[in-house]
């Protein structure tokens, strides 16, 4: 039995193709159930996100499995993958394991180190379990993937620091104010980037959002969506006197807030600082406003600078994350190797022999010299007689596929046996 992955992702296929082959949860259930019933794949998992659709399977014949998965995707999504052979990729055996682990680590993500993917991997696992397509091998593989995802996030800074303007704005706001949920945010203009930033603030816990826009109906519409309060733009001055954070992204061709106006607004704020994110180009706030006490003014270039610095830091963490991936690939390979008959028999024999020798040693003083030899022979014979039928069953199990592997796996747990490592022979 070998592992295989066939799929399309942001590295191989453009968005137009990726969106056509994206599966919703209902479709995932259907496809996995079908794959299971048609018996080409003994186990399967389908990971479908906006950046990837990847079908992981376990089969006896990887060639047939590849053809089957490609056909399944083409038939379900009506996409002719044969016409664009470069869009879909196939990896087998160890490479497929390594690929999933890198995906879970965020190493293969469009935004390096993003954390959403780990939740998506977990969900793919749940869907496979619900569809009855997840067996021993996939369970262990997904377990390894989640372990890698957690370790990379805990032991490296691959996911540290914001890497989008919206998240960088929220991060910077968190460096000024301790608790964003207690802060009021003013969104000026309903431009795409500003809206995204405001949305991010709401996701970070902001409860009071005011949206000021020249066209009131648009402010009203967005306020309904984000749970804010709409405001006509002519009441900007009073809104700025109240807000803790202002996000501005209007299409105005000249600054809408001058230094003088801001100075008079600051007089009404009682010393409270204000964080202004001016994403508009041309800028909505005069640059000299940044010189005023109590104003933290950052424009799009500042936010991009922060994003770039964080990206550089994330890239520097790639080698550490790759090391973790390799460690877990190795652990998975060792685990798989432990499921054949020879290593478990060897480990079981070693364990029982160790116990036998310990017990004989403990009672050695009770016997005279000649008896000691007899005791050794007797206990060795006893151990062999006990182990013989177990060994025979283990050899049978090793030919029984998934169920047999599961039984062998449980022997390790039952007798507290060490899994064979890379250095172990047999």
């Amino acid at each position, binding site marked *: 039995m070998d592992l295989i992955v066939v799929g399309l992702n942001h590295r191989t296929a453009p968005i137009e193709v990726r969106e056509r082959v994206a599966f919703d949860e209902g479709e995932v259930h259907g496809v996995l159930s079908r794959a299971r019933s048609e018996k080409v794949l003994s186990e399967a998992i389908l990971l479908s996100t906006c950046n990837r659709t990847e079908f992981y399977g376990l089969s006896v014949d990887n060639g047939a499995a590849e053809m089957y998965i490609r056909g399944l995707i083409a038939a379900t999504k009506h996409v002719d993958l044969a016409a664009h052979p470069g869009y879909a990729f196939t990896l087998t055996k160890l490479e497929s394991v390594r690929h999933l682990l890198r995906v879970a680590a965020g190493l293969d993500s469009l935004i390096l180190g993003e954390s959403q993917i780990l939740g998506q991997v977990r969900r793919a696992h749940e869907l496979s379990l619900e569809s009855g397509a997840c067996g021993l091998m996939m369970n262990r593989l997904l377990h390894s993937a989640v372990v890698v995802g957690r370790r990379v996030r805990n032991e490296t800074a691959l996911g540290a620091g914001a890497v989008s303007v919206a998240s960088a704005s929220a991060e910077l706001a968190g460096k000024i104010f301790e608790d964003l949920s207690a802060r009021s945010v003013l969104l000026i203009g309903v431009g795409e980037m500003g809206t995204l930033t405001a949305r991010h603030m709401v996701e970070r816990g902001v409860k009071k959002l005011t949206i000021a826009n020249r066209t009131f109906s648009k402010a009203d519409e967005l306020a309904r969506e984000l749970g804010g309060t709409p405001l006509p733009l002519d009441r900007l001055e009073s809104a700025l006197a109240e807000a803790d954070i202002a996000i501005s992204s209007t299409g105005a061709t000249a600054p809408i807030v001058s230094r003088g106006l801001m100075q008079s607004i600051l007089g009404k704020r009682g010393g409270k*600082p204000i964080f202004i994110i001016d994403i508009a180009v041309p800028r909505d706030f005069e640059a000299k406003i940044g010189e005023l006490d109590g104003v933290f003014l950052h424009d799009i270039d500042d936010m991009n600078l922060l994003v770039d610095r964080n990206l550089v830091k994330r890239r520097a963490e790639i080698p550490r994350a790759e090391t973790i991936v390799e460690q877990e690939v190795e652990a998975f390979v060792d685990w798989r190797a432990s499921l054949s008959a020879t290593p478990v028999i060897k480990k079981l024999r070693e364990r029982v022999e160790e116990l036998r020798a310990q017990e004989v040693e403990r009672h050695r003083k009770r016997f005279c010299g000649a008896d000691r030899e007899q005791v050794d022979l007797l206990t060795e014979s006893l151990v062999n007689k006990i182990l013989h039928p177990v060994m025979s069953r283990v050899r049978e199990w090793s030919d029984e596929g998934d169920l047999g592997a599961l039984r062998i796996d449980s022997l390790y747990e039952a007798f507290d046996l060490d899994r064979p490592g890379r250095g172990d022979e047999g």
Partner: protein
Amino acid sequence: MPGLLNALNIILPTLYALLWADYALLFFRNDPFAEKTAPLLLRVTVGLHGLFLALWTIWYHHFPIASVFEANSVLAFSVATLYLLIEARIGVRTTGFFIVGIVFAFQLVSSAFVEPPETFSTLLWEPAFMLHVFSALLGYSGLAVSAVYGLVYLMLFYDIKKHRFGLLYKQLPSLEIMASFTYRSASLGLLFLTVAMIGGFALLMKVYGTYWSWDPKLMTTCIAWLIYSLGLGASRVWGWSAKRVAFTSIAGFTVILFSLVFVNLVLTRFHVFV
């Protein structure tokens, strides 16, 4: 006992130096070893320091406030304890580098120059006098912590203002947290300093028959008290920004330092009781 006290007198600055190095590793390198060991080492060091002060009191029959060098050790202990409480409260360890640095400095000066006095004033056992001195030391501790947080606040404030997203930006907690600790520590410090000053005036009346003396230490302390009162009052009444409070705190503590070091050592013997 003197042997043990001498050993502790050497061990304490050594431990504070190690602790400072630990916090430096944590601040500059995010060192996982330092992350684990710093809080433990802080507790052990503060514990040993408390033991040292208790043993000193028992063996030499007076609280270690007879000279500025003895008082420096109490001050180091008090600042370290206050920092321990703050760290436990906010769970952020990256500001330890800044606070433990001054604790180390206070203890180093104390350990280097402290001598057990052969004789000392009986005033040291007067409850009113002890209240006066301990309030002053607690006040100084609060003001020292406030000044350090104020300084760090200003460093981060200007980094964010000028779009410098470097080490301070990465490692320090939010400006709001640091502003809060600057203000709260200064308020606590001012409260104890006020108690110390009232106690001091009462003692002055009892011993010298007057409420006022042109003693330089008394005058510098009054100046510091005025600076803090104005800064904290203005923050409360006129909504002074956290930046102004931070500047006030640094200015006030500069006067306190002048009072502690220069006035105590060079200009006066009024506050020395050996």
